[in-house]
């Protein structure tokens, strides 16, 4: 679904991505793991066309992201930080985005499960952080995209809502959707991810099925496996 080849990106003097290549398989959940400032969000932004790579190519569904903006029709994006125009309400935001995407068939499932109906007509500025995060998640799924890029999706959600969102991810995967998600919560990735890509210092240190990572590092859970990878990285 996503092919990233030899991508480098520098911000000022800081080399965020260094000749990074990664392939994200269709119909699977790929978890991006890495220390803070490893370049996970930057990679997601380059795939979305929010930032441009200095070198290298990125293709989504076989089409270069630089060719046209149309490939984004297939992507739902949930950014790390949810901020919306303060004086609009959720209903207007949905209307605006579906108007822009010319989408008619909307996925309202999360709306029901988050019990969000009562919040639909309130100005966004009056919503709490967690409620905005729910709105953020609903927007990503709303247009039934084939590919979802979720940046720290459960951050700020209470356990019930977090569970609702994780169930939704697994259900949509079973319908053939592709996911790329970043998270700092290892247990969450262990629950959701089929493949993991461990990014460190702007490079992919490991990419492959979750089970493979555990086998290579001879660890039984993801957290320890990642710790082991980081130790090896430091030793090498």
């Amino acid at each position, binding site marked *: 679904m996503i092919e990233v080849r030899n991508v480098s990106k520098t*911000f000022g003097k800081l080399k965020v991505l260094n000749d990074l290549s990664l392939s994200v398989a269709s119909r699977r959940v790929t978890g991006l793991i890495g220390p803070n400032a490893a370049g996970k969000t930057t990679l997601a*932004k380059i795939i*979305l*066309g*929010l*930032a*441009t790579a200095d070198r290298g190519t990125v293709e989504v569904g076989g089409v270069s992201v630089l060719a046209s*903006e*149309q*490939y*984004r*029709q297939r*992507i739902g*994006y949930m*950014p790390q*930080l*949810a*901020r*919306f*125009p*303060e*004086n*609009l309400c959720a209903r*207007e935001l949905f*209307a*605006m*985005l579906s*108007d*822009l*995407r010319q989408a008619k068939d909307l996925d309202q499932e999360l709306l029901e499960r988050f019990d969000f109906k009562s919040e639909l007509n309130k*100005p966004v500025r009056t919503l709490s952080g967690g409620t905005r995060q729910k709105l953020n998640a609903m*927007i990503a799924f709303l247009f039934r995209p084939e590919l979802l890029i979720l940046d720290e999706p459960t951050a700020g959600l209470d356990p019930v809502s977090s569970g609702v969102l994780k169930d939704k991810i697994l259900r949509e995967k079973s319908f053939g959707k592709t996911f790329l998600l970043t998270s700092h919560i290892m247990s969450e990735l262990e629950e959701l991810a089929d493949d993991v890509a461990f990014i460190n210092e702007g490079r992919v240190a490991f990419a492959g099925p979750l089970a493979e990572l555990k086998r290579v590092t001879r660890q039984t859970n993801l957290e320890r496996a990642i710790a082991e990878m980081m130790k090896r990285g430091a030793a090498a």
Partner: protein
Amino acid sequence: MRTIGKVAGYEIRDVVRSRWLIGYTLVLLLLTDALFRFGGGGEKALLSLINVVLFVIPLVALVFSTVYLYHAREFIELLLAQPIKRRQVYLGLYLGLGVPLSASFVAAVAIPFIIHRGVSTSQPGTFAALLGAGVALTLVFTALALLIAACTEDRIKGLGIAVALWLLMSVLYDGLVLLFVALMSDHPIERPLLALMLANPMDLARVALLLQFDVSALLGYTGAVLAKFFGRATGVTATLLALIAWVVIPLFTGLRAFQKKDF
């Protein structure tokens, strides 16, 4: 074009509900009303309003737009993640700010004048010129705010640049022009002075407005030169063209920066 309209339309809905914009409209409305009630005839009220227009509008357009754009940064990211072009987002943002700001100025100035029948006592042409200059200044400074926000990552720095730009154009510029005139008093400096006037949209708007009145004493140095140089009709056309350039150039320089920007 339709996408630009959609982005602008929803942004306008957000902006018109902003307390700051409502406050700006009310203050301007009360001020116009007060000037009209206590400032004597329509002509005098118009002249006083010109000062307000020249100072307040650029400041509000710059600061309101810059703050709005930095605040909307995450939302702009979300818009850019949709299947629409950056150009459409950018121009939508511009219209979404420029249109409501202009509309609240027009409403705040026009309503008291219509209530007090000010239009019939003074020349309607002058009144129209005042509205035109206010809208033009709003559009110029909104475009400059977009340029600043597209080029500066840090919001405090961006806001600083916006305020500094306003201070430079509204307060310091006249002083610098006078200094220049004093230093160059032995030379023919009419043409450089004209160029200096064209380089400041606030100066341009002032001259365009005062050319409407018979108050050459208020034209200032650059305005007097312009009036002499062009005559009235051509003078107005020249300032109009220059104001349009002041919208188009910052807007498209900003667009280029916005298209290359990493979010």
